[in-house]
């Protein structure tokens, strides 16, 4: 049975590759090849790794890659079908008759995802010290784009599953469907897998990872010997050699434009596993997240050009989002200066070509009316040519259409932060020795110091300050002026805004006990007065200072 399955799997891989090639869709083919290679890599890693965490990560990567491959396969099949039936590939701009508009694309960002858990009393009592742990992650799919969150370990001490990462989808339409799937695997000490056929089924459901995986498994178990090739059976992908941890689909939901809001919202989760499932987690049944959308019409200028506005004269207008910004000339806009004035364009705005009571042969005008409270404010825009008028009208109609499609996303621009690429945990900054904290600078020369001072203060310092004679060592210099370029500094906990030629003040060194001195008390902001009324001053003998004096010149800063 296994051999037959292997053959089928290999054939399928071949089929996948051939289809991609035949379609000559280089983009999709490249993506598919990439995922297949990633998948093979993940399989190898899974076979080679020994630690549980690694195995979990590798299995997760496997699952994600498999999902992506399936999704690309689905896309390929659709395109192949379309090709075979003689139609060209469907592109968004081609749908429908030419005068039917299509809304602009946008970026969707989901972040701060939190899934509450609902632990029962039994969970606390039945384990008797054993901490059951689960590895969970989210798989997010929008169109053909599949992304995953980081893997989080959950146990009964947590009240929620929180994902720190935010996921971005570009090129989404207002009719998007964002599918959320929560996968979980039980993290146990023992890795027992019972029986060979079950093992195979496990591997298969690992590889496919979706409800299709379960169906395959079910069909295999029920069919027994037949290769599981029923009509509903999906493509079988090559399985990893060893069985790794098992991820199960715990919950899912689909979010659409209606769920988009510039703030946190709670959505319902459809729970797909029950208590019998080994990876079952007591989910409360909802997911809380921030789903934001930025349509392109809000972030990119839709139209720009020269306009003549009544009572303002000639301006350079830029139509972007809910505003028509008018600048004196194009340079101002690129210099990011404030516009001369702004006309609001929103759902309530009314645009009309031409003027009321327009005499015959009148110039090409556009009127934009807005209601502010009880008043109606109308701006008259005059175009340079009929072509310009057409273009502006078209741009405005497209904008209004986009607003009607993207609805609440066009009320105000929702902020989206592009998440930084996920890095491995940062290496802790080395806690160096005293030597690391000494800055070695060439500015030891007192002549250079006085030069700097002279330049800064104006009147030349002909006579060095009288206290200079007290010292045999070289003194520190003043700090560089504020607008000097910053010198590169070692990564440390508290950087200052200006570069000091003598290294930063050593606020970290409060714990460094100097020779012969008691440790310093912790610094408090409400300290009482010191200094005045102190006991007889203790003179410190210069030899006692040792190397520290040379290493730490006494800083002086001009203010």
């Amino acid at each position, binding site marked *: 049975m296994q051999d037959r399955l292997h053959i089928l799997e290999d054939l399928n891989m071949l089929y996948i590759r051939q289809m991609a090639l035949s379609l000559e869709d280089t983009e999709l083919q490249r993506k598919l090849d990439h995922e297949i290679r990633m998948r093979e890599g993940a399989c190898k890693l899974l076979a080679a790794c020994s630690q549980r965490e690694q195995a979990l990560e590798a299995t997760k990567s496997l699952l994600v890659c498999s999902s992506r491959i399936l999704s690309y396969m689905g896309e390929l099949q659709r395109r192949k079908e379309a090709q075979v039936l003689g139609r060209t590939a469907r592109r968004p701009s081609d749908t429908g008759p030419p005068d039917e508009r299509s809304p602009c694309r946008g970026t969707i960002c989901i972040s701060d995802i939190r899934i509450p858990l609902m632990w029962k009393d039994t969970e606390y009592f039945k384990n008797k010290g054993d901490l059951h742990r689960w590895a969970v992650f989210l798989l997010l799919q929008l169109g053909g784009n599949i992304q995953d969150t980081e893997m989080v370990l959950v146990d009964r001490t947590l009240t929620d599953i929180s994902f720190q990462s935010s996921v971005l989808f570009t090129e989404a339409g207002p009719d998007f469907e964002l599918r959320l799937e929560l996968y979980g695997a039980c993290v146990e000490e023992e890795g027992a897998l019972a029986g060979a056929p079950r093992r195979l089924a496990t591997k298969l459901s690992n590889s496919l990872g979706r409800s299709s995986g379960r169906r395959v498994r079910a069909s295999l178990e029920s069919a027994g010997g037949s290769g599981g090739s029923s009509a509903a059976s999906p493509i079988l992908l090559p399985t990893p050699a060893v069985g790794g941890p098992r991820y199960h689909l715990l919950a899912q939901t689909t979010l659409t434009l209606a769920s988009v809001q510039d703030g946190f919202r709670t959505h319902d989760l459809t729970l797909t596993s029950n208590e019998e499932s080994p990876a079952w987690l007591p989910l409360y049944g909802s997911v809380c997240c921030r789903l934001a959308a930025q349509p392109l019409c809000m972030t990119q200028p839709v139209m720009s050009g020269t306009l003549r506005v009544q009572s303002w004269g000639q301006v350079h207008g830029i139509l972007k989002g809910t505003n028509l910004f008018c600048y004196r000339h194009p340079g101002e806009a690129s210099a990011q200066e404030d516009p001369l004035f702004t006309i609001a364009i929103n759902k309530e705005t009314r645009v009309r070509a031409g003027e009321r009571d327009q005499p015959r042969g009148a110039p090409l005008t556009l009127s934009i009316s807005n209601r502010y409270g009880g008043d109606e404010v109308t701006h008259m825009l005059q175009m340079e040519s009929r072509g310009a008028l057409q273009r502006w009208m078209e741009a405005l109609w497209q904008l209004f259409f986009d607003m009607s499609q993207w609805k609440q996303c066009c009320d105000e621009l929702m902020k989206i932060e592009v998440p930084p690429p996920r890095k491995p945990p940062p290496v802790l900054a080395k806690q160096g020795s005293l030597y690391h904290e000494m800055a070695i600078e060439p500015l030891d020369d007192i002549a250079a110091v006085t030069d700097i001072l002279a330049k800064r*203060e104006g*009147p030349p310092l002909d006579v060095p*300050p009288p*206290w200079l004679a*007290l*010292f045999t060592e070289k003194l520190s210099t*003043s*700090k560089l*002026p*504020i*607008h000097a370029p910053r010198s590169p500094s070692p990564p440390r906990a508290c950087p*200052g805004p200006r570069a000091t030629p003598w290294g*930063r*003040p*050593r*606020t970290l*060194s*409060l714990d460094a006990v100097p020779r012969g001195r008691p440790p*310093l008390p912790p*610094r*408090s*902001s*409400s*300290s009482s*007065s*010191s*200094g*005045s*009324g*102190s006991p007889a*001053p*203790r*003179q*410190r003998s210069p030899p006692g*200072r040792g190397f*520290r*004096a040379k290493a*730490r*010149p*006494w*800083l*002086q*800063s*001009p*203010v």
Partner: protein
Amino acid sequence: MIGVRPRGTPACPLPCPRQQRPPATQQNPFRQRVEIHKLRQGENLILGFSIGGGIDQDPAQNPFSEDKTDKGIYVTRVSEGGPAEVAGLQIGDKIMQVNGWDMTMVTHDQARKRLTKRSEEVVRLLVTRQGLQKAVQQSMLA
């Protein structure tokens, strides 16, 4: 605002009447209140003096302190004709407070920052002066 020198005017060579020092505070005769109006030099507001000291600095190298374990902030230089000199700040003064903020247990950089806040055009310092200290001590003993 009363008492704010308009921007761009150079430091007045004569001490302005409003900047005459008020009598020493009653609680502690060693202390002086000094009010400095910052001078605008290009982009920066300067006070016209330099500070030394701080809890992260080596107090033994402080030439102005009587007690060589004193980690307070001291005035190490006063530029001629600058706002600090005009206000009556002297070299060797120990700065106890700046606009109410304590300066006796701060790092060097913190002290500098508290004096150079861009939002503040006037800084009111509470300083201790050794000469004054000695003078009062002597007057008390006599």
